[in-house]
């Protein structure tokens, strides 16, 4: 445990621990998330079970990051998402990570439309079991990054079949990891290829998708996502 803490602290040295609000109606998962985040050096300022409490906690405790479930009481539809959108309207830069049980593109669209993609994460709940990876993702989103679950990207790729058919398997992999908000070097590490190869793949992908090359990481993810969701409806 100590090793995990020191390792994360070493990989992303932060002057102060991030103050997080957790919203999850399932007690078991909420407590699990609390333990997970505390062990990874986050400070839980509030852990709530309803969207109303989330909005109240978001206003009162002025957190650095909000982690919320999609489905919450009372109607178990997208209350968590709606609450996050409300909080972001009041504080546009507030980083929000939404955890979802399923890949639902309708929710992704709703989320990205409300946020321009910066400081937004949309992850499947399964990702939390990769503890360190999950903590890293939260820090990336806090730093203004965009993190969309690879499963969502691969589903979008499937849907946007026509132009994306031209992408090679490797280019799709790179695209999926890039959408998680990783830098070129991180992509290279993840896929065990050279950074030069990553740059080449991204260049080809951008060209095939008619997106001008761009160095800014948030914007390149946002651009890819905008492209992917832009022509679906």
């Amino acid at each position, binding site marked *: 445990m100590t090793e995990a803490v020191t390792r994360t602290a070493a990989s992303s040295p932060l002057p102060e621990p991030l103050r997080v609000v957790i919203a999850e109606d399932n007690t078991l*998962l909420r407590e699990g998330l609390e333990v997970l985040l505390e062990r990874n050096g986050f400070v839980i300022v509030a852990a709530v079970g309803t969207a109303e409490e989330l909005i109240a906690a978001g206003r009162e405790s002025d957190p650095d990051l909000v982690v919320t479930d999609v489905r919450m009481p009372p109607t*178990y539809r997208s209350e968590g998402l709606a609450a996050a959108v409300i909080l972001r309207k009041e504080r546009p830069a507030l980083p929000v990570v939404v955890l979802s049980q399923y890949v639902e593109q309708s929710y992704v669209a709703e989320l990205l439309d409300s946020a321009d993609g910066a400081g937004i994460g949309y992850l499947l709940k399964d990702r939390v*079991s990769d503890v360190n990876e999950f903590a890293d993702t939260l820090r990336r989103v806090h730093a203004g990054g965009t993190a969309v679950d690879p499963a969502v990207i691969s589903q979008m790729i499937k849907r946007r079949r026509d132009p994306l058919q031209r992408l090679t398997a490797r280019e799709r992999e790179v695209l999926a990891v890039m959408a998680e908000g990783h830098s070129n070097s991180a992509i290279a590490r993840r896929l065990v290829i050279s950074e030069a190869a990553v740059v080449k793949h991204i260049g080809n992908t951008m060209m095939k998708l008619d997106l001008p090359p761009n160095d800014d990481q948030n914007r390149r993810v946002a651009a890819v996502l905008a492209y992917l969701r832009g022509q679906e409806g």
Partner: protein
Amino acid sequence: MSRVELQQEVLPIVKRWRGVLYTAAVVARALTALGGVVLLGRLIALALNGSGHSTGGVGAILVAGLGLLGMGLPLLSVALARADWSGAAALLDRAAGGRPETRLSEPRTLVRPLAYTVVMLTLGGAVAVLSALVGVGSLVALVSPFLVAIGDQAVIGPFTVNTVSQSLFAAVIAVALLAGLVFASPAAARAHASLVFQVLTRPEQRLQRDLSMTAQSRARLVRAFDVERRRIESDLHDGVQPQLLSVSMTLGLALAAMPADAPGRADVARAQSQARQTLEALRRFVRNIHPQVLIDHGLGAAVGELADLFAIPITIDDQLADRLPADVETNLYFCVAELLANVVKHSGASQADVILRRLQPETELVEISVRDDGCGGAGTRRHENGGLDGIADRVAALDGDLVIDSPLGGPTIVTITLGVLEGGRR
């Protein structure tokens, strides 16, 4: 088993005091009707006796009397049939909607009430008079001990009761008879009510009623089935999935805390990946039961997400501007899911299209069509037909139309049309 239940549904068990009240009411009506007929007969007889001198006068009065009877009897029949029908319907909890039409201006509709009245005046009248006599006699016998005690006497038909022992004997018999009447009443009430339905309802009216009940129960079954699906989905979603995820999360915490070369680390990692695979399998399963996105975002979005799961490209053309009623959405979703599964399983198609649209805004007709470029022949191979039968059942339960256009060699176009005017459906 189901036959028995059906029988019970048509003729429920009659509660004792309800049966007594009903029987009493029927007896009272039968006696009133008898009284009415006797009165009519008396009027004719009086007229006959009063002017027995001229034959022409007798004929005229006879004609007038029969005319009176001819008018009176149908009136009586209609009144009696209506009263008894309402009573029987109330007793057996049948909807009053099936009430038989009786119009004095239309002789055809009077045949059944007349036949019923004749039966009630003869057979029913005899039973009514007999039971009324028994009832009144029993009541008198019941009070006879008091009458004897105050020095009076009680006369019950041919019997005269004037000693204490006689009166007590009579009271005991009266109690037994009254108890017998009370116990027999439910059976008598049931028998009478079923007689009312048998005689007064035309056979086609009975068939129509059975048919509408069957259609309603089929629609209810389909709805109950969907409600149950949603319950199972939410139980799994809110109960089992979070638990499994929590296990996976705890294993993740354990892994993060373990040094890379710790003994058993590989086992923990394997356990975590097994938990994840189970979670994934469960997720697919839950999704097939009832997708949440259908509730949140409607039919178009749900069909869109569904299409992503299939291996062949499926384009969705969603022209439904607003949401449909929830049970219609659910039914159509499962129809489309089944149709797409059929396309992938049987047609060998390389692509499919789903079009959702409203046909005419004013009639609220919705048309869903699924077309594929496969080999056609859908519905011709019996053993592959289970899915299509299920769709046909669902569509029929919503009073919709299912058209399958699938020539051998393809392409196949399956079209579902149904009205969705909320509340005004059916």
